[in-house]
């Protein structure tokens, strides 16, 4: 019987947050702090001829001015293609070319305006479809010499920074076997994470050269590693501390501002330097979601079996794709969505453009490809006159099914999710016409997602038992709002059999908390959770050993229960955790063992690279998460407005460690997905972002939230803690295609690009009437 895992414990960070006590990076005020600003490029693609910083340097109150030559080393997570300040050339509007640290923000701002830069404009690329043409201007001439991970395949002399291929079965044969072949195209624009906290970083260098960085970041250790490379510093000489994080969604997964404040701080005579981004800066100078063009060719039999699929995804990676290249890879190994298709040819191609840098965004490519996949599926279902739900059931991945990489799956809860969602949205019932101008429709969409990460990256945890038997749990998985602090604490509580209130979780300090690769990929509960489970078991085993010595009873006759070790056979033989916390005191007064510290480490087992030419592999990912959403919408046929009335969702969480927080995550994902479906698009013209603020980049507000019905399915993942899988990102993946399919159901029009604005819908209605 589980006591803490599976319970909806209240958030452990709740009181701090509801009182406004939580400290985010911009809340930190250090003595002697200097304030930084960046000088930005006005051109999407240009050679830097000359930078004159002399006037800025002379301005009273200015302490440091730096340019690209101060940060010459290229860095990047999967592909080392960027420097923190532009060198020789700029590749997007807004790219930092210089930075200033001054006594106040106002002075820094003025100083930046005094920096003079001469540019020579170069022709630019604004779409991946343009970028792949042989005569397209080259954005990274030296791509061939950039260092990269083995799983990434950049093509020297082109704008293609990664090309992931899937060659499963034989598509030629497959299409011959098909009774019908359909081709469809889809487009997903750039969007921005829009966490309410803007990015901020502070750096300070001490007299021994040790650097401390404070930044709300999803990945303190990966940030540390990147910074160490960029500044050629030993890892022990750099400390990354992440205060509270005001939302991430991938936007705070990389290293950006940190690489600008450090070189400023290195010249600031030990004074700390803070760089706060405005909302406008966040839109152009932090990661945005990559744009994507999709072409899908589907071969299907009369009976509704998909026998072949040919998919092409062209990713608009923006000016730097150090992180985005792996999104293209993820798009490749998931390229057909959660369906079992015997013959697949897929090409997922990441292309440089002169747009702001693309990067991880909740879903890591899955929202984009599923918008195409799940609408395509609906189109095909309607063409062959099959119910879209039935069509999905028929082709769904089930136990024993094979993914596009040839991986055989077990423990698949997808069909259960389809059924649950269909029931909750009342799939069989339709009220189509509510009035002369209001039409309703329902749409469904499935998804799957795996953590996209290097195979061998690890997590670790430390469980420190305090003198009184309470526990400090140390990890570097970060709570960005998703509730990991709470769920991870529950995992420790379950093993240690003590109440959550007796455990304090400490995160986000590379000098104190143990290694964690990153808080991304919906991997925290699974990876960090497993390491915590092991750390707590390690602590428990140490105590069992001591109790065994104390009572002279074999360890396997003892158990840890309600915070004490007790004999299974002699209930009066028991000792509290507190009495073993510092080791065991022997009858003669001597002590043995010493304080109990449990350690746990985890790497997902048996995950291996796929073949570079075919993309085939037995286990390219740690696990798959399946989910389904269905939406009911109402369309005003005179204005084209779409209102989402209801969304039903079901996810296979394997085991929900905290069911209420799982539901809360799903609700948040639905509304974020709804934003991407109906409202959100970075309007970029010739490389210039026209709507870099909430005035013209609208995200959902309270009135946009639909009625939501959430279900959790639990088909355990054998390698997860108590069977748990990650669900954080999957929550927003199927929302947009479900809404798009519902719009079609309502009015018979397909909107093949996001967002589904009233304007597009009205245009489609008018065209259909013609």
């Amino acid at each position, binding site marked *: 019987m589980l006591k803490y895992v599976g319970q909806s414990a209240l958030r452990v960070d709740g009181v701090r947050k509801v009182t406004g006590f939580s400290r985010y990076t911009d809340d930190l005020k250090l003595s002697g702090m200097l304030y930084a600003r960046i000088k930005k490029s006005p051109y999407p693609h240009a050679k830097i001829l000359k930078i004159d910083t002399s006037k800025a340097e002379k301005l009273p109150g200015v302490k440091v001015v730096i340019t690209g030559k101060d940060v010459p080393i290229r860095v990047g997570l999967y592909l080392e293609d960027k420097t923190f300040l532009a060198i020789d050339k700029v590749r997007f509007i807004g790219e930092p070319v210089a930075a200033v640290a001054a006594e106040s923000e106002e002075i820094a701002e003025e100083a930046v305006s005094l920096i003079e830069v001469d540019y020579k404009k170069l022709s630019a690329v604004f779409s991946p479809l343009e970028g792949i043409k042989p005569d397209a201007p080259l954005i990274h001439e030296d791509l061939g010499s950039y260092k990269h991970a083995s799983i990434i395949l950049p093509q020297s002399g082109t704008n293609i920074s990664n090309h992931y291929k899937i060659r499963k079965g034989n598509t030629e044969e497959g299409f011959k076997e098909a009774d019908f072949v359909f081709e469809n195209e889809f487009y997903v624009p750039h969007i921005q994470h829009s966490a309410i906290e803007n990015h901020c970083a502070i750096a300070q260098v001490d007299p021994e050269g040790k650097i401390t960085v404070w930044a709300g970041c999803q990945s303190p250790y990966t940030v540390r590693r990147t910074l160490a490379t960029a500044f050629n510093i030993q890892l022990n000489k750099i400390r990354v501390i992440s205060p509270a994080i005001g939302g991430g969604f991938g936007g705070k997964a990389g290293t950006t501002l940190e690489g600008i404040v450090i070189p400023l701080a290195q010249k600031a005579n030990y004074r700390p330097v803070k760089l706060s981004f405005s909302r406008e800066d966040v839109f152009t100078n932090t990661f945005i979601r990559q744009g994507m063009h999709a072409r899908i060719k589907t071969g299907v039999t009369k009976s509704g079996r998909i026998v072949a699929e040919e998919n092409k995804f062209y990713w608009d990676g923006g000016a730097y794709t150090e992180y985005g290249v792996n999104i293209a890879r993820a798009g490749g190994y998931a390229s057909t969505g959660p369906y079992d298709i015997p013959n697949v040819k897929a090409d997922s191609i990441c292309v440089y453009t002169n747009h702001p840098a693309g990067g991880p965004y909740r879903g890591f490519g899955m929202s984009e490809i599923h918008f195409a996949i799940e609408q395509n599926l609906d189109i095909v279902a309607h063409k062959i006159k099959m119910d879209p739900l039935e069509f999905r059931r028929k082709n769904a991945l089930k136990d024993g099914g094979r993914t596009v990489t040839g991986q055989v799956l077990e423990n698949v809860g997808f069909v259960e999710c389809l059924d649950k969602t269909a029931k909750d949205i009342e799939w069989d019932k339709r009220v189509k016409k509510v*009035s*002369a*101008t*209001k039409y309703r429709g329902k749409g469904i969409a499935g998804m799957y997602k795996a953590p996209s990460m290097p195979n061998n990256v690890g997590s670790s945890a430390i469980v420190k038992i305090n003198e009184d038997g309470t526990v400090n749990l140390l990890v570097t998985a970060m709570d960005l709002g998703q509730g990991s602090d709470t769920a991870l604490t529950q995992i420790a509580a379950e093993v240690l059999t003590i109440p959550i209130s007796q455990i304090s979780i400490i995160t986000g300090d590379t000098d104190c908390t143990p290694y964690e690769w990153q808080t991304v990929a919906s991997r925290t509960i699974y990876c960090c959770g497993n390491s915590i489970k092991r750390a707590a078991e390690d602590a428990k085993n140490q105590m069992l050993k001591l109790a065994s010595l104390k009572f002279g009873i074999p360890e396997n006759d003892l158990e840890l229960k309600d915070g004490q070790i007790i004999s299974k056979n002699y209930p009066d033989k028991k000792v509290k955790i507190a009495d073993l916390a510092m080791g065991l005191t022997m009858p003669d007064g001597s002590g043995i063992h010493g304080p109990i510290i449990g350690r746990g480490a985890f790497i997902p087992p048996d995950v291996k690279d796929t073949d570079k030419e075919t993309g085939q592999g037995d286990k390219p990912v740690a696990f798959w998460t399946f989910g389904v959403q269905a939406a009911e919408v109402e369309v005003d046929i*005179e*204005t*084209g407005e779409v209102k989402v009335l209801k969304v039903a969702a079901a996810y296979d969480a394997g085991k929900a460690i905290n069911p209420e927080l799982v539901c809360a995550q799903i609700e948040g994902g639905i509304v974020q997905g709804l934003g991407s479906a109906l*409202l959100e698009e970075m*309007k970029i013209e010739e490389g210039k972002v*026209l*709507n870099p603020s909430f*005035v*013209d980049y*609208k995200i*959902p*507000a*309270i*009135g*946009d939230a639909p009625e939501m019905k959430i279900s959790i399915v639990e088909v355990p993942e054998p390698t997860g803690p108590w069977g748990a899988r990650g669900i954080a990102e999957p929550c927003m993946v199927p929302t947009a295609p479900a809404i798009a399919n519902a719009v079609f159901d309502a009015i018979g029009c397909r909107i093949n690009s996001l967002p589904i*604005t*009233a*304007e597009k819908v*009205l*245009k489609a209605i008018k065209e259909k009437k013609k």
Partner: protein
Amino acid sequence: MKEFEYLKPDSIKKTISILSQFGEKAQILNGGTDLIVEMRDKIIQPEYLVDIKAIPQLNRITYNKQDGLNIGATVTLNEISNSKVVQTHYPILVKACKTVGSYQVRNRATLAGNICNASPAADTAPPLLVLEAKVNIIGPTGEKIVPINQFFTGVKKNILKKGEIVTSITIPPIKGKWVGVYLKQGRKKEVDLATVGVAVVCIRDEVRIALGAVAPVPVRAFKTEELLKGKTIDESLLEKAGRSALTEVSPISDVRSSQEYREEIIKVLVRRAILQAKGGHIL
């Protein structure tokens, strides 16, 4: 934000004298919800900011049957929405005020500010146009009253001259039964700027129509009104009215909407607003 001198006169007389003295260098601070953002973005950089919120007579709403409604310059949109007399006599104005920004913004933003800012998309402008509001202005040369449809002179431009301030807005009484409707189309239902705003007032056989966000200034659709005058409203007339309204405006494409979509929405909203004001249902 650039440095400036903050002045807070407690009388209209002092305000006019400050404004006359500093001219272009001075800017009135009322609700500040547009001004402070523009100053932050360095779009405008006044040297003197003249806060008019300490002038007692500007902060009143008065109503009587003979003169109608008078709303002082510093009365906020929420004060208008919450005012019993406005709710009773001019519900269209309440509706329009409530579509401006968020609740927080409406606690600061004012009706006078909304029109002085002279955004083509100002939500309160179309209702004021159909209510034939009058803008009360005081300046160095004395008082004057300007009909609202002469107040706007261009995008973000109004008729005010050096040293002049708007003291209040008067909405004359309307005799007999009448119904007013304001319909707004935005990208989303709440806290958004209008891509098209349409106000309609029906007074017996008279129909007044005004449109926002579809021309350099908010406009009355006089020709369309003429077309409808005294006629029985039916579907074909409504359609004609929509098409006619289109000829009286000049919508553009911008980041919020294309010209084509604005044109479609003008037709729809004009039709719906008339229908609703005539007591019909919007389907």
